[in-house]
């Protein structure tokens, strides 16, 4: 009995619940499945098509992604002979893990956080910076020119977006005088971060698009140019994993955007809904806006994206830091 109660204690621990349910794996999985459906549906409707339909017709084909996932699971994984096999097989798993890892320090509500730390923002940046390396490694391990070019492009993009991603978070850290997510959210009572520093929000949002290779920065895996970029050689469930990893990363970054700029679980009015539901709902809306851009934009060239990164968004992010400093000086 003693062991049983101990096991229960471990399972019902808040950190474990946070890691497994909200905002961890389960929520991420559900949101990712939903967001891919939403993305396909939105792109279809903007192009005056119908989109996925025939799987669960009454619900508008919402289970299409589940069907796709099953198809990925049952198809035969093929490891090409020319690849570096260990790395090739390891990378999708690592990528999926590392994409979701930053969620460990991001809260969904006051208590639903895996690791409560004062340096949440810093830890998030550190954890989020690992994934691009894995993508580059995946491109290298595939031993294919498209994968190689895709990996290289990811490297180029990394050099451009990481800077303004970090700068916009720096602006927030200066503005609230803390690196702790929960304190940042609590100090947004009444006035969300996006209103105080919209430029930081904009540059963070664009960095989000760039780092998850959403349109218009879908450069590393530009399908019409380099097949699938670093993931060209991947098939069956391995491809499912790398595709899912990208959306997991989008989810984590949207969650951070919600926490930092949209006040997390804070609302201007009071409604009797659990805090984490509000956070997840806001996150989902941010994700929808991010995937909606697929239907709007064409793709930038790599040099254009780098110019935008260094010549336009870097000064913009610097400006946002300046705004934060000024706001702090005024005493808000």
């Amino acid at each position, binding site marked *: 009995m003693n062991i049983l109660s101990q096991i229960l204690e471990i399972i019902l621990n808040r950190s474990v619940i946070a890691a497994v349910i909200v905002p961890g794996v389960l929520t991420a999985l559900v949101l990712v499945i939903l967001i891919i459906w939403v993305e396909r549906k939105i792109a*279809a*409707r*903007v192009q005056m098509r119908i989109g996925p339909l025939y799987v669960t017709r009454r619900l508008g084909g919402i289970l299409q992604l589940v069907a796709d996932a099953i198809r990925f699971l049952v198809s035969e994984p093929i490891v090409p002979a020319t690849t570096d096999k260990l790395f090739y097989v390891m990378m999708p798993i690592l990528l999926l893990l590392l994409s979701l890892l930053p969620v460990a320090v991001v809260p969904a509500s006051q208590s639903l956080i895996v690791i409560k730390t004062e340096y949440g923002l810093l830890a998030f940046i550190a954890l989020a910076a690992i994934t691009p390396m894995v993508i580059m490694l995946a491109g290298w391990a595939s031993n294919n020119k498209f994968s190689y070019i895709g990996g290289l492009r990811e490297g180029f993009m990394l050099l451009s977006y990481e800077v303004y991603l970090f700068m916009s978070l720096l602006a927030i850290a200066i503005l609230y005088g803390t690196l702790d997510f929960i304190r940042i959210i609590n100090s947004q009572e009444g006035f969300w971060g996006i209103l105080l520093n919209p430029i930081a929000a904009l540059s963070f949002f664009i960095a989000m698009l760039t780092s998850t290779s959403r349109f218009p920065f879908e450069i590393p895996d530009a399908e019409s140019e380099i097949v699938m970029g670093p993931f060209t050689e991947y098939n069956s469930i391995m491809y499912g994993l790398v595709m899912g990893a990208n959306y997991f990363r989008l989810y984590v970054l949207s969650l951070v955007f919600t926490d930092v700029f949209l006040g997390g679980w804070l609302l201007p009015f009071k409604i009797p809904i659990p805090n984490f539901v509000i956070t997840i709902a806001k996150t989902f809306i941010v994700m929808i806006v991010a995937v909606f851009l697929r239907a709007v934009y064409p793709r930038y060239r790599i040099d254009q994206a780098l110019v935008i990164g260094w010549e*336009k968004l870097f000064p913009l992010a610097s400006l946002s830091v300046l705004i934060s400093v000024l706001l702090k000086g005024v005493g808000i």
Partner: protein
Amino acid sequence: MIDVVGHLKAIFTAVKYLFLRPITVKYPEERLKKPKNYRGVILLDMKKCIHCSLCARICPAAAIKMYKHKDGKLYPGLDYSRCIFCGFCIDICPSFALSHDKFHEVVTSNLKDMKVTPTQTLEFLRKNEERLKEIEPKIR
């Protein structure tokens, strides 16, 4: 600097299109209404035919072949695996024996059935129509 107006315009256009009705036709369940001079399968009126073989000569896909009927005269038969529905045979027919039907879904279970002799034309059409009626399409 950054073309803010252009970006906003692009986004608003996309939002506008998001709420328009899709123009896709869900084909087997939904059909478009056929226009007046629609070129579907080709029907033969054996009473009007004057056995001139002009249709077989004009056919660019060589789909029409003349078959000898019981009365010892030649009538055109069609091979739908070759027919391109161009309508040349109908245009050239001096006695208006050939005509288009609006039905166009030529589906058979094997290639041999695609070849239709003059007497089989109507039967062929009926069989195909019956098969498609099972789905009960909505006409849009």
